[in-house]
């Protein structure tokens, strides 16, 4: 019957459905957020009593995410999807993690090495950024001999560019030192792929059976206007944000370097704000110019985080929205100002493709221009290693990150798709799994495509407002010390309690791990008794109890994934049609009552 000789049969890989709280779905490494929140909420309110608990919780997190403590400073991606967001403010997951970090980072040195014998193949990870480190950590956890090839003299990649007032350097240092120690990873510093002898094939010859290429985006992107590079980027007084932040991270810039200078920063991303706020701290008077508009909710809205924008505003940084840069004006070799047409649209269906209205222009004058409009990969290298497809894109499988031209090479992180740190980490995790499968010679894809189902927020009478996060007032924070105060133990417990644990018990099991429950006893409905009166539906705060038509009758049923085994529907059922499977409350009660008479 088929026109072609096709059999009509075609291999489709099964999507594994998984139910999770929305925050954990948003998190690229699906960190066990709900569980940690529950456990934090049950900590003793005495700091020294609580310490053991904090370490216990952190140890568990570390297993999957060896730098969750760093996330605690700079990653709040999960909060974007928190159900609580429009019910009084997202749960401050980042700060809860930072709260753990404040105790745990110190404790890291006491954490022992992996016990696993390193008896598997050699694997090279090129690039010691978040993606590379994540991959290395998980491979070595599985017994592979991992070597990180790092171009610079330190691990962490772009993380070093995050200014100290957001992420203290000593935290980074401690974290990576311990990570390397604990995971037992070899590092080759100052060795850049493509420079000198070092090629992928060379590594192969060295006996590396697989490679994860995660070199990130080493080069700043140049400023363009309508597809053409804007002239004058070579003027003195014009620099790139990355270069600047790199120098700052090496303390190569004097504290009052920008004193009395008018500095213009172009770009609307977090990095641009890092630049602007660093400059401000070094005495400059800063103006940000970005293509995007003020309203984050619009498609052309500014990408930087709310907190960054607010912080900058507090610190007296002026932001000019919806303006591009058409011309960079100079005077005898020195930067003088820019000519900014109105930007009428940033993205179209093709993607990034700004349109301007040149009849509406303003000139901005300044002493220094810092261009922070993104970064670029080392294209020539990729070319040379022939990892690109005819369209000039990376030639990799998006599920497995495996290169099509070189199956033993896996590519991920910013180099593949620029994003947040944790997204790179996510790719590292994927790569580790792929490399493991590749080297074990098993199916690369089977069971990996996940289709997540998030849960709506449970019903409750009142939702609590988010806590005020204390920052050092702007006038006192013009330095590179942390300006955000972390949670105290009490604050952490309160905030953790605020979490309504949207997710299913199966992906949490906090109450089991602390012995509150013997087992998750889902509620069973005895249809021989259920009359479909619907009392259970109203009492259930998780939409787990619901009515379904059974022929001409109505009966209730329980959605096992949603059921939290709280037992309220059991009490509400006037027919005793609902009961909890292997559950001991009844026995407990019976035992006590027996002792009464």
């Amino acid at each position, binding site marked *: 019957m088929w026109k072609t000789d096709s059999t009509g049969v075609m291999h489709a890989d099964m999507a594994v459905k998984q139910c999770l709280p929305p925050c954990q779905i948003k998190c690229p490494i699906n960190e066990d957020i709900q569980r940690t929140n529950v456990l934090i909420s049950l900590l003793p309110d005495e700091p020294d009593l609580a310490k053991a608990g904090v370490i216990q919780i952190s140890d568990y997190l570390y297993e999957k995410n060896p730098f969750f403590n760093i996330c605690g400073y700079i990653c709040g991606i999960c909060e974007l999807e928190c159900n609580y967001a429009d019910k009084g403010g997202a749960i401050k997951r980042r700060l809860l993690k930072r709260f753990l970090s404040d105790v745990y980072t110190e404790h890291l040195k006491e954490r022992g090495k992996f016990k696993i014998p390193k008896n598997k193949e050699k694997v090279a990870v090129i690039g010691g950024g978040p993606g590379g480190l994540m991959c290395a950590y998980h491979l070595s956890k599985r017994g592979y001999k991992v070597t990180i090839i790092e171009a610079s003299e330190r691990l962490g990649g772009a993380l070093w560019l995050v200014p100290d007032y957001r992420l203290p350097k000593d935290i980074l240092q401690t974290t990576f030192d311990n990570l390397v120690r604990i995971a037992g990873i070899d590092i080759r510093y100052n060795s850049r792929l493509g420079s000198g002898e070092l090629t992928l094939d060379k590594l192969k010859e060295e006996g590396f059976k697989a490679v994860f290429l995660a070199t990130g985006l080493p080069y700043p992107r140049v400023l363009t206007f309508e597809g053409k590079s804007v002239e004058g980027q070579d003027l003195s007084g014009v620099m790139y944000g990355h270069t600047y932040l790199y120098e700052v991270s090496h303390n190569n810039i004097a504290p009052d370097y920008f004193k009395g200078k008018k500095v213009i920063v172009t770009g609307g991303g977090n990095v641009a704000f890092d630049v602007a706020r660093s400059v401000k701290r070094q005495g400059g008077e800063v103006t940000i110019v970005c293509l995007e508009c003020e309203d984050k909710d619009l498609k052309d809205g500014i990408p930087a985080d709310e907190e960054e924008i607010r912080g900058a505003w507090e610190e007296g940084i002026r932001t000019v929205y919806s303006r591009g840069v058409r011309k960079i004006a100079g005077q005898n070799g020195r930067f003088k100002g820019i000519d900014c047409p109105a930007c009428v649209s940033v993205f179209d269906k093709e993607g990034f493709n700004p349109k301007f209205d040149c009849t509406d222009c303003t000139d901005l004058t300044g002493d220094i221009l810092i261009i922070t409009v993104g970064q670029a990969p080392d294209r020539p290298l990729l070319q040379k290693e022939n990892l690109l497809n005819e369209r000039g894109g990376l030639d990799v499988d998006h599920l497995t990150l495996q290169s099509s031209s070189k199956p033993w090479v896996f590519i991920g992180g910013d180099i593949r798709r620029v994003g947040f740190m944790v997204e790179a980490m996510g790719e590292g995790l994927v790569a580790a799994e792929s490399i493991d499968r590749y080297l074990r010679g098993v199916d690369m894809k089977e069971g990996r495509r996940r289709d997540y189902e998030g849960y709506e927020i449970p019903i409750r009478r009142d939702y609590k407002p988010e806590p005020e996060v204390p920052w050092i007032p702007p006038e006192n924070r013009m330095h590179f010390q942390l300006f955000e105060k972390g949670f105290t133990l009490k604050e952490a417990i309160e905030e953790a309690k605020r979490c309504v644990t949207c997710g299913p018990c199966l992906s949490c099991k906090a109450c089991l791990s602390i012995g509150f429950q013997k087992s998750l006893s889902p509620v069973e409905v005895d249809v021989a008794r259920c*009359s479909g009166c619907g009392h259970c539906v109203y009492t259930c705060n998780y939409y787990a109890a619901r009515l379904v038509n059974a022929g001409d009758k109505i009966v209730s049923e329980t959605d096992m994934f949603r059921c939290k085994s709280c037992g309220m529907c059991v009490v509400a*059922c006037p027919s005793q049609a609902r009961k909890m499977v292997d559950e001991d409350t009844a026995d407990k009660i019976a035992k006590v009552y027996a002792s009464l008479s």
Partner: protein
Amino acid sequence: MAKPKVAICWLGGCGGCDEAVVDINEVILGVANAVDLIFWPVALDFKYDSIKAMNDGEIVLSIINGNVRNSEQEEVAKLLREKSQLVLAFGACACFGGTPGLANLTTKDDIFNWVYRDAPTVVNPDGKYPQTSTDVNGKKLTLPEFYNRVYALNDIISVDYYLPGCPPPPHLVIAAISAVLEGKLPPRGSTLAPHRALCDSCKRNKSKPERMAIREIKRIHEVEADPEVCFLAQGIICLGPATRDGCGEACININMPCRGCFGPVEGVEDSGAKFVSALASILDVQSDDDIARLADQILDPVGYAYRFALPSSILQKKTAKE
């Protein structure tokens, strides 16, 4: 072979249950032929002695309606138990104590004082109260002893089967009788009625909102109830969810909410307690004051939850055991 001997007897009842037997109309003739009705005070002569003279278990089935409130009723109950292979508790009073069981909310003295002293129409200059034994100019007249409380039948004797309802509807009466005649009885202790709650067969069940919540309690006289919509959804107390099905929705059909004459659903010990749990759970309240406000709108919790079953409630069983 001889027809099975069947006895029908009332204790503290109202006669409605006997009416219910008659309400099977033509069918009764067939039954009258199939069994040897040896004892039916409302319909037949009988010799009390003749029953005492019987062998234990000679009566195949005793259908007993009414609760037990005095010595006389207790004695008949026990006698019939001894002489019968099967005892069927017939109707709400025998099964759970029935409406008159609400008398357990008050005391014998309180009843006597009102009835024979305080009622506005009473003329009782010498303050006489009924006595178990009185001399009227040399003649001795006796009365049975009036107990302190009402008992359900199974407080007094062991009961083999239950047929609830006030009164049991014809179709269940017929079903029960034929079950006995055809020897197709379920295990002893069973209730010869459906297992689910009334909502199961209630036409209004589908009218409920997905999540039923009560914000205001309405009393039956305060509203013109929508004859199509679930009473609870209208804020009107209805015992349907906590009451065994089988009545044929008699009250629902005339747009009156259920008051629970069929007693608890299969496997539920105390429908009143369960009803309180269930009702409380669908009260949609915002504050403690709100709880009080709404709960107080339920004027008479015990009168709703135990309209027909007070003597067999958990707490009453206690006193029964004492």
